[in-house]
Structure formats: structure tokens, C-alpha cells
């Protein structure tokens, strides 16, 4: 069912973003047990309908103009142009203001709704994900907004392939509801973080020891030379 893995250029931010956007839905719709989300295509459907109605108007006008000529179609051309550009404007507004980066809308049994909107800042390899989780708690509605950021290096390997498992771990580790639904990925994410923390501690401990040695008067000159050989 899924398309074959696609290799992309790691320096192309658009590719990184769209590849990641596309990978979100398969992960969230295949979460284990009953907590998986069903994708809601409402926003995409509205966009497609607006676009295709506009294109159909243009297509019909083109055919009529080709078959009947200007004199016969003259009366219908002005209304068709107005309708076309209104629909086109509505499409632009919908994509820019209403959809505004929504890459996944899903609901699951119980009526909880998860909406993800992604964005990137030009020339910065950071993936920003805006998360809105809505749950119909008895009586009052519960809404939780959250924004997370992640470096693309966390789920793209050096060859330019997306590591779906790594992305899944990142989602589970950073979005609470996904973490609860996908405890296995969450556990792996926490273990990774634990490893990193230990590594950092080792590094900082090493640095401290190095600092202690270099502060001895006999080594001082050498250490400076070694530290900045090019500038000296």
C-alpha cells in the first residue's frame, strides 16, 4: 500500500517538510489498539472542490468558446470570469487562512480530535508542529494547545531517507496523547533521552578534568597553543 521510500536532498527544506508531513498520517492512523486516529479529510476536500469547480468553469468556457466563438459566448464570459476569480480567491483564502498548514486532522473512538499544523522558518532545519487536542469531556469541552519543535536530523538519516520509526518515537515522546497511545515508542524515546543524558554527563565530566589539568602553571602555554593553533 505505502509508496516505496523516497530519497531526498537533505539540504532541501521543502522536501524535508513535505516528506515529514506525508509521514504523519500513516503513523497516527496505525497506532496500536483502539486509540488510533481516523483521518478526517474535510479541509482537503473543501480545497479540492473549490479548485475543481473553478477549473470546470474555465474548461466549459474554453470548450464553448472553441466550438461557438466569441459572439455566441460573449454574454456568458463576464459572469464566468467573475465566478472563476471568486472561487479562486476563496481557494486561496481557504488554504492560507483556514487550513494554514494543517497536515493532519484525525478523530478516534470517543470523539477526541487531534489537529496537527506544521511549519518551517526559511533556512532553518527545524520542524515546528502545532498540536491541538480536543476531547468532549462530559459537559465542558477540553482543549489542549501545544507547539513542539524538532530537528529534521532526528528522523532523516545521512542518505536522505526518512526513518519512520524515529519519527514515530519523536511524536510519541513529545505529544502526550500519542505517547499514551503508543507506549512502546514512548519507552524507546525515553531510553534514548536517558542515553543522551548519560553521554552528556560523561562529556562534561571529561571537560572538567581537562580544565583542571590545563590550569596547572607548567602546561598553561602548551594548552593555549593547542587550543588555537591557527590563530596564534
Amino acid at each position, binding site marked *: 500500500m505505502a509508496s516505496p521510500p523516497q530519497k531526498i536532498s537533505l539540504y532541501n527544506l521543502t522536501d524535508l517538510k513535505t516528506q515529514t508531513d506525508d509521514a504523519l498520517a500513516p503513523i497516527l492512523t496505525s497506532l496500536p489498539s483502539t486509540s488510533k486516529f481516523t483521518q478526517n479529510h474535510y479541509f482537503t476536500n473543501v480545497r479540492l472542490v473549490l479548485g475543481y469547480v473553478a477549473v470546470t468553469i474555465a474548461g466549459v*468556457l474554453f470548450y464553448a468558446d472553441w466550438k461557438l*466563438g466569441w459572439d455566441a459566448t460573449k454574454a456568458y464570459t463576464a459572469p464566468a470570469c467573475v465566478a472563476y476569480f471568486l472561487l479562486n480567491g476563496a481557494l486561496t483564502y481557504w488554504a492560507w487562512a483556514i487550513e494554514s498548514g494543517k497536515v493532519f486532522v484525525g478523530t478516534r473512538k470517543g470523539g477526541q480530535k487531534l489537529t496537527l499544523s506544521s511549519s518551517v522558518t526559511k533556512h532553518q532545519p527545524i520542524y515546528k508542529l502545532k498540536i491541538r487536542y480536543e476531547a468532549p469531556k462530559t459537559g465542558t469541552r477540553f482543549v489542549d494547545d501545544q507547539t513542539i519543535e524538532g530537528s529534521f536530523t532526528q528522523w532523516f538519516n545521512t542518505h536522505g531517507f526518512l526513518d519512520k520509526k524515529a519519527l514515530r518515537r519523536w511524536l510519541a515522546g513529545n505529544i502526550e496523547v500519542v505517547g499514551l497511545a503508543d507506549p512502546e515508542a514512548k519507552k524507546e524515546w525515553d531510553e534514548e533521552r536517558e542515553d543522551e543524558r548519560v553521554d552528556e554527563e560523561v562529556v562534561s565530566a571529561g571537560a572538567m578534568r581537562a580544565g583542571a589539568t590545563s590550569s596547572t602553571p607548567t602546561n598553561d602555554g602548551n594548552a593555549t597553543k593547542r587550543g588555537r593553533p591557527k590563530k596564534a
Partner: protein
Amino acid sequence: MFSEFKSVLANPRQSLQQVLNFALVLSTAFMLWKSLSVISNSPSPIVVVLSGSMEPAFQRGDLLFLWNRDVGAEVGEIVVYNVKGKDIPIVHRVVRKHVTMPISGIEASANGSTSIPSPKLLTKGDNNVADDTELYAKGQSYLDRNEDIIGSVRGYIPAVGYVTIMLSEHPWMKTAMLGIMGVMVMLQREQ
């Protein structure tokens, strides 16, 4: 090939979106053209000069902007006309004009307003020896302002239309250009 087809089926909305992007580019260009037609009241509001018959005023490849909301046409005005049975519009200057004056009372319509009859025009290319009588349809010795003229020239940009002359004289260029455009739109995604 088969795997591509499979991925189209796997994500139909994304494929529809890519086709839509391509269709929107084409349809927007067409509708802008049609809007210009409506505004200028001309079936072809922008034309390219194809021959040197109007030199030195216009060269081959000049882009002309037409306006067709005027009722009459004056001697000295440069107009674009279509000859019945021929597809190519011709850009020439009006050199003679005849108006059949309405005999008062006869042409007046029921509400009292007199309808202005469409002037008959004779045209000639500045660079041609003879007038256009030879170019007109059989038996026609004058153009009818309302029926034959598609607009008078209101502005021009030199030379930029030469691309279209190249494209129509070398049809393979048209095919290649359309192909490249299509591939580019299909491959690149928004942003």
C-alpha cells in the same frame, strides 16, 4: 511505472491536488485572457504583428493592445480586422471612411433615439503599395466597423511577441514548451 500507479491510488487526494495545481495555472491564464476580452470588448485583446506591412510603425513581433468599445473609427486610426473565412487578424490603417447618414425619422427607433449606422472603412498597410481591397472577402470592398473590426490599437510593446512567431513557425517548440511546463508543475510542490 506500476509502482507509480500504485502510489497514485494510495493517496488519491495528493494526486488530485497535483493535477489541480497544473489545471489552475492553465485555467488562470485562460480566464485572465477572457477577462481582458470582456473589458476591452474584443475577442482578441492582445495580438502580435505577423507581417511587415505596417513598417515602420510596427515591426514583426510587436505586441499590440486593442480596445473595441468605440463606436466609430477615424481615418488614420490603426485597426485590427478579421476577414470572413480567414483566421488571421490583420493590422492596418484606416484610409477612407463612409457613413451612410440616417435620413431623419426613418432610422429612428420606437423610443426616439437614432441608431448610428456602422461606418464602412477602407484600410491599407503603411508599407504596402495598394490598399486592402484585394485582401477582403470576395465581393467585399469595404470593412464594416461593427462586424469586421476586432479593435483599434491603443498601445504596443516592441518585439516581445516574437516568441509566439517562433512558436507558430516551429511547432515542435510549442510541444516542447508545454511538456516542460507540465513536468515542472507536476514535480514541484507548493511553497
